[in-house]
């Protein structure tokens, strides 16, 4: 098997000047949070909410099943290396993926299956953590290059 040193490889990645992907993820999380807040206040389930939740849920599902995530992503998922690593960090740090996925899916449910206050709470907690973590990486002073190739 080809030996791969995970720690070294990952530390290299931080310096690759791709911090814009962290900003992109923070903006996605912010958009989702705003949509969840609107839904919690009784607004119609908007496209904003559906798109945000679906992308996150599908990505979390793939992470949970240990499937090939980065190599075979469809555009609906978080597609960048930095986004996936941040998602991994957030889920592994404090959240139970099973409960989170259930709560997120409940936000998309239609008819009488209304999401509970706990579902809204968990979803908001997740996206808040995702936005904060993405901003933390974005503000790494070492990653000063951006947007350039």
């Amino acid at each position: 098997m080809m030996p791969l040193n995970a720690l070294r490889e990952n530390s290299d990645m931080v310096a690759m000047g791709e911090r814009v992907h962290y900003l992109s993820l923070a903006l996605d999380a912010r958009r989702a949070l705003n949509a969840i807040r609107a839904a919690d206040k009784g607004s119609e389930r908007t496209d904003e909410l559906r798109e945000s939740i679906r992308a996150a849920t599908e990505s979390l599902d793939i992470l949970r099943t240990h499937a090939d995530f980065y190599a075979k992503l469809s555009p609906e998922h978080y597609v960048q290396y930095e986004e996936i690593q941040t998602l991994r960090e957030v889920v592994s740090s404090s959240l139970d993926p099973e409960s989170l996925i259930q709560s997120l899916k409940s936000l998309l449910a239609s008819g009488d299956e209304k999401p509970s206050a706990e579902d809204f709470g968990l979803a908001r907690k997740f996206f808040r953590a995702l936005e904060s973590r993405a901003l933390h990486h974005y503000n790494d002073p070492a990653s000063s290059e951006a947007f350039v190739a």
Partner: protein
Amino acid sequence: MPEHPAYLRHDQTALYAFIGSIVEGVAARRSCAAYSPAAIHFLDFIADLAASSQKYLSEWSVADSEEFEDRREDLGTIRAAWKELHLLIKPALDAGTLQVPSAVIDGIVRRFHDLPECAGTDFALFHTSEFNYVQVRTADLKRISAKVKKLILDAPEFPPDLGLIGIPYSQGRTAFANCLVAHEMGHYKYRGTKLESSLKARIDAAFKSLPGNSDQKPDDASKDALIKRLTLWAEEIFCDLFGVMLIGPCYTYAYIEAYDLSAVLDYSGLISDERFLPRLQFYDTYPSHMFRIQQQSLLLRGLSWWDCIEKNCSRSSTLLNAIQGIPIETHIKENPTQGKYIPLLDAILPDIKEAIGEAFDGVDDEFVSFSRLNPTVQNYLANGVVPSTLNVPIGKGTGEVMTVTASPLVLLNSGMEFYLTHLDDLIRSIPGEDEKRFDCRLHWIRRIEEWIAKAIEDESLKKEVSDVNPNGNGNPGPPQA
């Protein structure tokens, strides 16, 4: 309703001021310099985004502690977006039309317009402090802008078909070094290609096909890092080959000079292992220059341009010939840590070449035009004449000539050939000049570059006139509504 907390007003004001400080002076600077239409589009976008962001901030409020928890990071996210733009604004303002080699770059941009679906693209230039040509990933900028617009509803759209390219601040007067912008245009073109969207899966397949890798855990983070590295390497190769296809071998010659790659040749023109082997080491995000120049050479060998390269007696051409025979095993051997990844890059080279073929499908490589006009351009340059309007002999010995203009691609390649192979002849032909004096050489190199830039500019003006007035009667067309 509870009153909006004072500490939040403080934080909002701090961000409001941060945005203000970034765009402060933009209007003043703009009135002191002339900018290209593309640069003006970009600066207008910044001004509009600043206005909408500040309006958003002035209306931003939270009603209770729960909303505070959910929305406080909103301010940090907007601040981060402005930090990104901060990088670009001053360099764009510094790059007024007097400071950038507009004629040469315009000529290369016009060539870019010949590509399918690229006719409407324009590039704004800015200055970099390092000796690096860079392309701002406008696809990312557009994506970020679209996401910002989801938060700040009246934020402007990023100008469509706008690319941003950085050139070293010191290279404004040069012509040939700026051929390297062709590579940066490749980065612009690469975004959204089929190659970009399929590359990760292709690399993954190549990875798994290697002995012993089929049982690698699919979610291995280190494998993700490897795939990421390979995609970056592949993009660089794509952009190099794109540069070659866009403007011909003058791109490769400029590349060789920029990185002093002919240093790997010994006194007699053979490859010196002592200087060559250390240069085979790949970087984290870039293949080695030697690997890159080999790929360019191999592409050129399959094009009509190769005959000219073989006849060219410069050291750069010698290198392009010599580097072709370096086997992949040598690249692998000289990369103790990364060598194992090189076969993966090698495996996806056909995909990269296919993508290049698609990008240039139906585009004239202009070699026929070059072959026809190059002798005349060489003759003009040897006599110190700007090759704007060429009197090309028709037939043999009839004395008849046809008056034509050469395209930027032809002029750049002819000029580069003259610079590499006939500079000494030119200087020797001028009484009182000495080809051994460096100040003298520099003076005439600058003159050659100016002649080529002037010819490209003249060709551009003629083209503008003929576009306005296709009858070619020398009079401007009727006023447009």
